[in-house]
């Protein structure tokens, strides 16, 4: 079992107004699964993914990742988890625009305190995996959207995480590039990566082996 989340509630406070974005959600995901979470915008999909990815903490509930209680971890432990166990892929790629592809993919390895030689080897390895080794010195704005997203996937993979979390990864791509990205996810899943995909595109969700729907902060089937 990679993920075991139970009764996850997340309340945002904006001044005097409290918004319950997630309402007692429970989810277990076993190792090697490929799951899609669907639902309309504002349903809390991203918030849920952020909590699963240790970027955010639930207001209440329990969350165990690889058997370890994440909710009560301190910043350093959480960051370490994000760095080594989780790979994030975002709708807007979230690459550093002024830096070249090499540095963008190298970034997590810095925080993992890897040596220079190892950093170089790993970056080249994952970039060739997504077929972008020839773009290594380019800047993100010299790449197409699909290529940017493949760079982002390479970055997510560079520390060999067990879990990949993708938040609308095809949202900014044309359908051809979108399918290409999903093919890569399928392959990664076949190699044993656990993947959770958030999307509102049904066509893309079909790549996952299992889908669930989130509406108004609750899971419906």
């Amino acid at each position: 079992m990679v993920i075991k989340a139970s009764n996850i509630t997340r309340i945002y406070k904006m001044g005097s107004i409290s918004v319950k974005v997630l309402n007692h959600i429970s989810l277990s995901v076993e190792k090697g699964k490929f799951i899609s979470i669907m639902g309309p915008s504002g349903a809390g999909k991203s918030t849920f993914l952020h909590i699963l990815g240790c970027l955010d903490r639930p207001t209440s509930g329990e969350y165990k990742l690889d058997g370890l209680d994440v909710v009560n971890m301190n910043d350093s432990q959480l960051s370490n988890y994000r760095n080594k166990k989780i790979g994030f892929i975002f709708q807007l790629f979230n690459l550093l625009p002024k830096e070249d592809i090499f540095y963008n993919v190298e970034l997590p390895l810095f925080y993992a305190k890897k040596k220079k030689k190892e950093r170089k080897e790993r970056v080249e390895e994952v970039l060739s995996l997504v077929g972008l080794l020839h773009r290594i010195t380019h800047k993100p704005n010299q790449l197409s959207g699909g290529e940017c997203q493949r760079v982002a996937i390479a970055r997510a993979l560079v520390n060999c995480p067990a879990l990949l979390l993708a938040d609308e990864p095809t949202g900014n791509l044309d359908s051809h590039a979108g399918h290409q990205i999903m093919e890569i996810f399928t392959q990664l899943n076949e190699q044993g990566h656990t993947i959770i995909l958030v999307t509102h595109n049904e066509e893309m969700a079909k790549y996952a082996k299992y889908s669930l729907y989130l509406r108004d902060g609750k899971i419906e089937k």
Partner: protein
Amino acid sequence: MIWINFLLALRGLLSYKFRVFLTTLGIIMAITAVMVMASIIEGAKRESLEIMATMGGPSNIIIYPKFPEEKDVIPLGLLYGDALSIRNRSPFIEGVSPTINNWVGVKYKDKQTQEVNGLGCWPEFLNIAEFEIKEGRFITWDDVEANHQVIVLGYITKQDLFGHTSPIGEKIEIEGRMYKVVGVLKKKIPKGWSSEGIKWLNRRYCVPITTFWQEKDIIHEIHVKVKHINLIEDAFLHIKSILLARHNGVDEFDIHTAKGALENIRQGIKIWILIMGAIVGISLLIGGIGIMNTMLATVSDRKKEIGIRRSVGAKEIDILFQFLMEAVIISVSAGLVGIGLGMGIIQLVGLVIVNVEGPVKTVIITPFIVGLAILVSSLVGILFGVYPAYKAARQNPIDALRYE
């Protein structure tokens, strides 16, 4: 860990070079001022050392003749008898020597030296000037009274003329007159002094004053060593009264005390420290605030970047270190530019300040001054960089990621 944070910071800085450049100006100015100030102080210290070296010691007095202020008086100048009177009557002194200075080359066989300082003096001059004998002997009272044509060579002059062989007993020619070498002085280098500035002191030779008259009984200076530094004021007043009495009340001499000269330098340094200290303080403050301002602007401009870094595993402390390191890199590189600029200014000043009477006074740069400048600039970077860095580190990663 620190190295990686340094790399991250350097990379971060390169993405906003121009802003960094503008920020550095305040620090550059401050560090330049630090350099100039420190080197002036250092230069003054060396000047004090030089005074000590030429005057002999802190409790020394030198008397020079001067033109009297009264116009209708014919000046007598400083007389041999003045020195004798001081020697016989002042209870405060340890030693007296009248001196006659001459700048000519000396000859040994076919070897001729450049112009060196020749000094006619008394035996007590050795003790007054705090020189020591390396070989042979110094001038004696017998030499002075019997006009013996004997000479004691300065260390460098001896080296120039005789190399490593002993000169004792050899004959040396000075302006056509032959002197017999009876001794050699030890090389003298005061502590902390690069020998260049007082080389001329180590070239100087001494002869009995009675063999060195340019005009009978007229002497150039009187050197006095006072028994104790606390007696300098008493000695000063007593010498003055003796001289006034001998010169019919006409004030035609300057009485310099080493203590007074050192005091003047100390006062000068004090004023410099005040002025430069104020400039340094103000420009460091301005520079520091500039850095803080730039870093705060940077932190909000780069909110998204912070979010991205956090999402791939940067800890709060990593972000803190990156931004702190950026501030320190800014201030230290500004400091380095300031050091360069300061050195340039110091060299220029060194060229302008030339002491016509003797060696060129240079303003000095030591490794300590450079170290101080680097230390001060890194402290400013840390001090003013901490708050922006803390702000960057404490951003909520989700908010930072959503920021466009």
